[in-house]
């Protein structure tokens, strides 16, 4: 098999707000529907219009989904980044560029193809020339890769659903682009896209939309949110699906949506909903979690269920708002002042975004505390394949909820905060029920919920809370293990690194290493994680942050005897992980041992 068939990286440099996203998604979906393993990454600025943006499309017969380490085909539309984009290319790169920008491509070592895209677009529609120009590179690319125009039409129709005029205009532009390339670009190139047998069940979807749908199927009753990149599309996804999926027989909606005044209020509303017996949720990113921290502590201490999704962007502070990172993990795990510990669900695929979306509510009510869903910009805002979402396999778990006097009488020695069953989880009643009314409080309280500053009462409460959360370990999603016979090296990782791990694994195996992997899917970590570490000679904790946050958590909680075989590889530059870069860092650490 020719290694340049379905194995290449396309980088498309455009300016934000020029409509290039439509063109890029058309290329991505065309290749996806052809059955080519393909992934797309949108590297966009914190801006609505004008700043540079890049879209990376990688075709990989091996199924690698990381952005790739070098560019094979560069499309250049943006004059602001023109010189830099051109200079960065490796020798032999194919360049497709818009001639009308009238900037030089002084790279004799590359293969450059120009097209007067703006001029051609103006003939179709002068007003929309800037937007339409982007469709010409779709045509040029289709020609170079040998993509049949019939395959493109399907993607265009799906992109502009039902808008006949738009479909017609854009197809005209693409066809003109193909014709121009066929006539003027007379050199045969090495990269080809070839159709494969596509699993008809698979489709591409953003992690945030999967999370939104999961929440809708999880019975969300109250969504409070404050807009923040990259989490807003979780809320917007829920809002979009509510009319169809959550309209009651009387025509009313079964989930209230409130756009809050800030993240503090959004978190407060989640607690209010949970306290009153509903399933409340908010979604945010790191800056929002910082603001919500006081309420997160209240949820932990007063034992009020709730769900918060954190779609991580780059911190600290405002950071890089449109770039990706795993920098919030340790904050989520111990958010708020005093001793706290929170359950964190960490999806690594869109299927898990959906699954943890609904499961989060069950965990929240079961453990009567705040549950975090921890995603990131890469997983949340880029499109990933799934074979379709799986319906919840278990009934809703309302936890130890007492709804009437009979149920109350069945609990011996009931007290709101009394550990009747020995698992650290007490029973609760709801406002409106008239059953055991108490005043919930963030102040010290005894087993009946009465205010207390008693040292023993406080200390016992804190011990019970620790026992309660600790007891969730093996009830939470277990790690995904891929183990080799030789227990030489274990890589422990989590979240969206899932999309790069296969390539990292292959690179390391090609160097003669035997690599097992363990993807952690929740905190507090499962006992399987500990046994995985103990089985392997050496373990690397691989993550996208500076300080090695999961490494820190493991080091704090693992038995001291295991710490000698635990090492950290933590690196973050805001970009989705490139396999070669992380592999090199792993090799460096191994060499230092």
């Amino acid at each position, binding site marked *: 098999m020719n290694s340049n068939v379905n194995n290449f990286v396309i980088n498309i440099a455009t300016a934000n707000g020029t409509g290039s996203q439509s063109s890029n998604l058309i290329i991505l979906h065309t290749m996806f529907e052809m059955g080519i393993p393909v992934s797309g990454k949108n590297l966009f600025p914190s801006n609505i219009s004008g700043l540079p943006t890049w879209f990376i499309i990688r075709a990989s017969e091996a199924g690698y989904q990381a952005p790739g380490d070098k560019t094979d085909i560069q499309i250049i539309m943006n004059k602001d980044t023109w010189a830099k984009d051109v200079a960065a290319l490796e020798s032999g790169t194919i360049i497709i560029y818009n001639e009308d920008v009238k900037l030089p491509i002084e790279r004799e070592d590359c293969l450059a193809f120009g097209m007067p895209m703006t001029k051609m677009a103006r003939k179709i529609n002068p007003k929309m020339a800037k937007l339409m120009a982007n469709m010409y590179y779709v045509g040029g690319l289709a020609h170079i890769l040998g993509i049949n125009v019939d395959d493109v039409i399907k993607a265009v129709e799906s992109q502009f659903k039902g808008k006949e005029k738009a479909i017609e205009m854009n197809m005209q532009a693409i066809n003109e682009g193909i014709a121009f390339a066929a006539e003027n670009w007379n050199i045969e190139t090495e990269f080809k896209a070839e159709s494969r047998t596509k699993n008809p069940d698979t489709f591409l979807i953003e992690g945030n939309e999967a999370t939104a749908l999961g929440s809708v199927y999880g019975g969300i*009753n109250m969504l409070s949110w404050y807009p923040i990149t990259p989490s807003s599309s979780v809320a917007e996804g829920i809002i979009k699906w509510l009319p169809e999926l959550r309209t009651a027989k009387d025509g009313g909606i079964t989930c209230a949506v409130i756009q809050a005044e800030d993240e503090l209020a959004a978190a407060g509303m989640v607690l209010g909903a949970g306290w009153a017996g509903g399933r409340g949720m908010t979604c945010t990113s790191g800056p929002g979690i910082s603001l919500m921290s006081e309420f997160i502590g209240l949820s932990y201490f007063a034992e009020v269920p709730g769900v918060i999704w954190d779609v991580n962007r780059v911190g600290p502070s405002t950071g890089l708002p449109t770039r990706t990172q795993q920098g919030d993990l340790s904050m989520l795990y111990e958010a708020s002042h005093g001793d706290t510990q929170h359950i964190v669900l960490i999806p690594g695929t869109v299927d898990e975004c959906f699954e943890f979306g609904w499961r989060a509510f069950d965990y929240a009510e079961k453990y009567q505390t705040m549950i975090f869903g921890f995603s990131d910009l890469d997983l949340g805002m880029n499109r990933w394949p799934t074979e379709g979402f799986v319906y919840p396999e278990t009934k809703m778990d309302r936890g130890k909820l007492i709804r009437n006097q009979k149920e109350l009488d069945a609990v011996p020695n009931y007290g709101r905060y009394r550990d009747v069953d020995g698992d650290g989880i007490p029973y609760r009643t709801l406002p409106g029920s008239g059953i055991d009314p108490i*005043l919930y409080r963030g102040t010290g309280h005894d087993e009946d919920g009465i205010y207390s500053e008693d040292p023993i009462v406080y200390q016992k409460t804190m011990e019970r809370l620790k026992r309660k959360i600790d007891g969730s370990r093996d009830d939470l999603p277990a790690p995904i293990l891929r183990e080799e016979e030789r227990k030489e090296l274990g890589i422990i990782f989590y979240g969206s690194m899932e999309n790069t791990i296969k390539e990292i694994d292959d690179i390391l195996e090609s160097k003669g290493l035997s690599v097992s992997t363990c993807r952690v899917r929740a905190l507090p970590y499962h006992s399987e994680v500990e046994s995985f570490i103990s089985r392997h000679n050496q373990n690397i904790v691989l993550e996208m942050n500076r300080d090695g946050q999961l490494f820190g958590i493991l080091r704090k909680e693992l038995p001291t005897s295991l710490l000698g075989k635990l090492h950290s590889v933590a690196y973050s530059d805001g970009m989705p992980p490139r396999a070669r870069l992380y592999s090199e860092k792993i090799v460096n650490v191994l060499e230092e041992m």
Partner: protein
Amino acid sequence: MAIVKLNVIDLEKSEYKGGKSSLCPGCGHDQISNVIIQAAWENGLPPEGIAKMSGIGCSSKTPAYFLGKSHGFNTVHGRMPSVTTGANMVNKDLAFIAVSGDGDTASIGMGQFVHAIRRNLDMVYIIENNGVYGLTKGQYSATVEKGSKKKKGSINSQNPIDLCAMALNLGCGFVARSFSGSKKQLTALIRAAMSHKGMAIIDVISPCVTFANNDESYKSYNYVKENDEVLHIVDYISHYSPIEEVDIPEGQYREIELFDGSKIILETIGSNHDTTNVVSALAAVHEAEKNDKHVTGLLYYNGSIPTTTETLGLTDTPLSQLNEEEGRPNEQSLVKVNARFRGS
């Protein structure tokens, strides 16, 4: 045999009482707690249907001292409105009675106060306003008047934030000011607020006996008694017993019908105040402030503003009471969703 007084749902007043107060003896807040107990009892509210809400501070401790048969949530500082919002969204049938202070509302919680009004949350929002932070030993709050002086420290030189003026500007449908020492007026206003659908703001001047009850303090007992400009005598007539003992004056009076059919009767004393006119209400507030007076009574009333849950078009059953079939879409729906994504 002792005669026991029962309300319309056959409960004794003791059913509405709470725990023992730990506030300073003579605190205005305890008088307000007693009025809340009296009002809820007289209105015949079922205790289990009430939710008591508060933030942090002296005033926010008081839900422990009233309505002991009702669930409550003593939340965090300045954030009572958001917790109330969440609870209201999932159970619109609860009667929310919230207590906050001037620090809790006018400083740290100003944002949430404003937005709860903007949404017209269905709740009674009582501010127990004494102009100082009592629990941290008497620092000024943002509602203290320019020129007022607490027991220790210098005269306040900053402009006050008037919470009634803010509520009026924000379009709140029920805005009243009262005084913890005016038991009759306060009882009628709180009873009316409980009968109102939507946000009811009652700013109650409640002297801090420990840090600001000196005569130079504009919120001391003596000062308020001497400078209280009463807009009108307020009487409340409940919908279930229209022959309650109320002296209706012979002169001019105004009757307002509330959401649950109860009525509030305002006996106008000399002033031209019109409770349906927000400009007139604002004028009354600002006029009083200019003269270092406190204007009390029902400043403004509009019962026709839709509440948050009405605006959202929620199903009739409180969301927290939905069963699994109503809360989770069926399996067939997901088959359809998947099919749509597949483009088939």
